[in-house]
């Protein structure tokens, strides 16, 4: 009986493994076709192939990065930035993504950045890790902190090393926990989007009947403040402007 059960497990594992290998093969083939099309300048074809992969449920930073590259080469700076943002969200530490996003952003007109050095550092630090990564780091320090306390107890309150180690790790845990909370709250409550059409017209209200207040260049990253049918309220934090654009003219972060 045990042998039969063991054999069954082996067979199931082999089947799922071979199935995974098969899927991986299909994905790799499609990705390779997309890469060839990209190299040949057939960006429409490359985009089509990558989007097919995305439609099949493959969502990775690499795929979003490649989609961003293809849109960039196609001249769609807005869509490129939107895809790079998605890639960065999934792999905040990837240097290629950071470079290409920075490069693409340099194509978009934006007001002079008057942010201070400390604020910039803080913002960079905030964006360096995702909320989940920070939460995981906080959990690890939390476990170490609890272990330090355990060691301190084990040594009956006489261990100098564990007292100070526990204290320092406790402070680190509190900082990481606060950081993680801020990041998660920001990720959940502050919605960002990218303008994907040339000079999107921002109106004073949701509807064609409202007057155009200002235009936003393609590729500009804006805050998404609200929704009304086929319209989205956007905010330009640096200029302090607010307006409504058509939903199709802005790609919101997923």
């Amino acid at each position, binding site marked *: 009986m045990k042998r039969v059960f063991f054999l069954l497990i082996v067979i199931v594992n082999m089947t799922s493994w071979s199935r*995974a290998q098969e*899927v*991986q093969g299909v*994905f*790799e083939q499609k*990705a390779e076709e997309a*890469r060839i099309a*990209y190299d040949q300048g057939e*960006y*429409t074809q490359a985009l089509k192939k990558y989007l097919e*992969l995305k439609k099949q449920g*493959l*969502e*990775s*930073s*690499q*795929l979003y*990065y*490649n989609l961003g*590259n293809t849109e*960039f*080469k*196609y*001249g*769609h*700076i807005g869509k490129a930035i939107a895809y790079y943002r998605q890639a960065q969200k*999934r*792999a905040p530490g990837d240097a*290629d993504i950071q*470079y*290409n996003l*920075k*490069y*693409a*952003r*340099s*194509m*978009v*007109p*934006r007001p002079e950045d008057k942010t201070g050095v400390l604020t910039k550092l803080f913002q960079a630090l905030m964006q360096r890790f*995702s909320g*989940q*990564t920070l*939460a*995981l780091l906080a*959990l690890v320090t*939390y*476990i170490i*902190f*609890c*272990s330090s*306390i*355990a060691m301190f*107890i*084990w040594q009956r309150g006489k261990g100098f090393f564990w007292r100070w180690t526990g204290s320092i790790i406790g402070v680190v845990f509190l900082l990481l926990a606060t950081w993680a909370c801020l990041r998660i709250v920001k990720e959940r409550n502050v919605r960002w989007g990218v303008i994907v*059409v*040339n000079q999107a017209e921002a109106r004073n209200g949701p509807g064609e009947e409202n007057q155009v207040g200002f235009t936003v260049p393609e590729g500009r990253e804006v805050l998404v403040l609200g929704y009304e049918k*086929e319209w989205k309220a956007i905010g330009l934090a640096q200029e302090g402007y607010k307006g409504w654009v058509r939903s*199709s003219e802005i790609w919101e972060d997923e």
Partner: protein
Amino acid sequence: MRHLFWESLLKISIGLAVLLFNQPLLTSAQDISIKAVVKPKQASVGRHIQLVVAIEGKANLRNVPQLPDLPDFQVYGGGRSSNFSFINGQVSSTLQFTYVMVPKRAGQFTLGPISIEYKGKTYSTQPIQMTVTGAAQGFTPPGRPGSVQRSQPQARSRPQAGPPGDAAQKENKAIFVTTTVDRRSVYVNEPVILTFRWYSRIPALSQPQYTAPDTSGFWAEDLPPQREYMTHIEGREYKVIEIRQVLFPTTSGKLTIGPAELTVHIQDFQRKIRDPFSDSFFRNFFSTGQRVNLQSKPITMQVQPVPATKRPRDFTGTVGKWSLSAGLDRTEAKVGEAVTLEVRIFGQGNVKSVGKPRLPPLTGFKVYETISSSEVQKKADTIQGVKIYRTLLRPEVTGTLSIPPITYSYFNPRRKKFEQVKVPSLHLKVLPGEVPTLVPVVGALPQTTGAGVKIIAQDIRYLKTEIPLHPEAPPLPPLFWIAGFLFPPLGLLGFRAWQKQRDRLAADPRYARKITAGRSAQRALKQASSARLRHDAKEFYAALAQALIGYLADEMGASRSGITQREILWQLHKRGAKEQLITELSELFDETDFARFAPSERESAAMAADEQKAIELLTQLGRILSK
């Protein structure tokens, strides 16, 4: 006073002219001729008859023909024209007088002769025979001279709806106006035909001045051409001039169409033409007649709003009967090229008020402003035309882009319901356009590096060639976070409790023995069981006694080696154990002692029964001792 001055001046002028004609000029009297023409020679009572008297001669003619007395006709001075020429020393002139005669009764009449005097000689026309027939339908002769004038202040028409004959029948007027509408109750934007009619039995002496009615609350469109025709009302023949307009009410509620006005000069019937040199002759001949202001009554309309229920979502307020067509100006375009989407709404109704169709979401297109134009055609009693909405689109992606079906809803007032027209999907094949060269606008990227590396061209980094099957950081489930943050403090508490227990066990041997009593007894019983299986009765009972005495001593906090069986039994007794239990334990003690110290053959069954009995006793005693 001023009027009298001009009349006197005219008299003097005429007198001087007559004197001048008595003087010979350059020609003889035989060169004068006079002719009279009547059109038509047969007419009915009340109809206009035109009389033209022409005088020609090689002279500078200024004479006025002398009309005979015409008691059976109303005669109006219609006008005078003259032509004078001087060629090769010869003077010649032509004078033409036009009169309008309206016969008062039927019969045979002889007109003339009409004569003119020139140089003391009289020239006459031949008499003209005329036949006047009776009125076709119950002819009633017109009122005495002056009757028109009397009726004029009240010469207001029936305002609408009723046949125009009623007006004449009741009021017996020679001239009046009416305004009518083809319906009284309409919906907003439903067309209404407003007809203005001017009925007249007498000629106008001046160009009439028409003031259109006030149509506030309506959108008005003229319906040309102006129509002229003759009609009979109560046996009288009227000349009718008709002006029509189409009105589209723009708001609901009671709306009023104001009165239409017509100002015209007509003959003053109080004066007759008898003596050319009399005051009345000159007044009739040269004056512009009497000024008459005619006014129709206002019309009140009931305008209903378009029903608020069951309104389609794409209804924009358009009323009428409409059709829809749509098309793109090309079937193929490149990315970024302008393509025009033309939506044509054509049919009957107020073309200018046709609302903009709501376009479906146009995915893949950048949509620019919509420009509209309209063409209006006026046919018969309807306003029809087409309103064209042109929207500029710019495809932004390649492939075959589709424009979903376009629908347009309007309210049909005839059927009293909303109707919808629809055009199927349109397709546009979009080819790749020129890829724009993106140029950095922010100088964020350095051109050279400190290590002497020179940057030739900058671009984005290449594709990622390895795409993993799974995303790198799948979101962790909430249970993971709950467990992760809950277990460490729980573990810490457990650790602390374990440490405290360990300390107590170390510090308190009795407590430690009590805690471990059960486990010690189990170990001893296991040894006993093992001995029983080996048929080693001595070891079996020794282990059994160790299990019993050891457990009870540990529980009682006494020394295993120091406590006696009697003491154990006594302690149990003190702690409330039943006598039977104590007896059974005592018997088992005896049994074990006997077996250990007086070896004999023991049956396995007896050993198993003793073991079972020991387990039962330990269980029951454990309950008593743990209280």
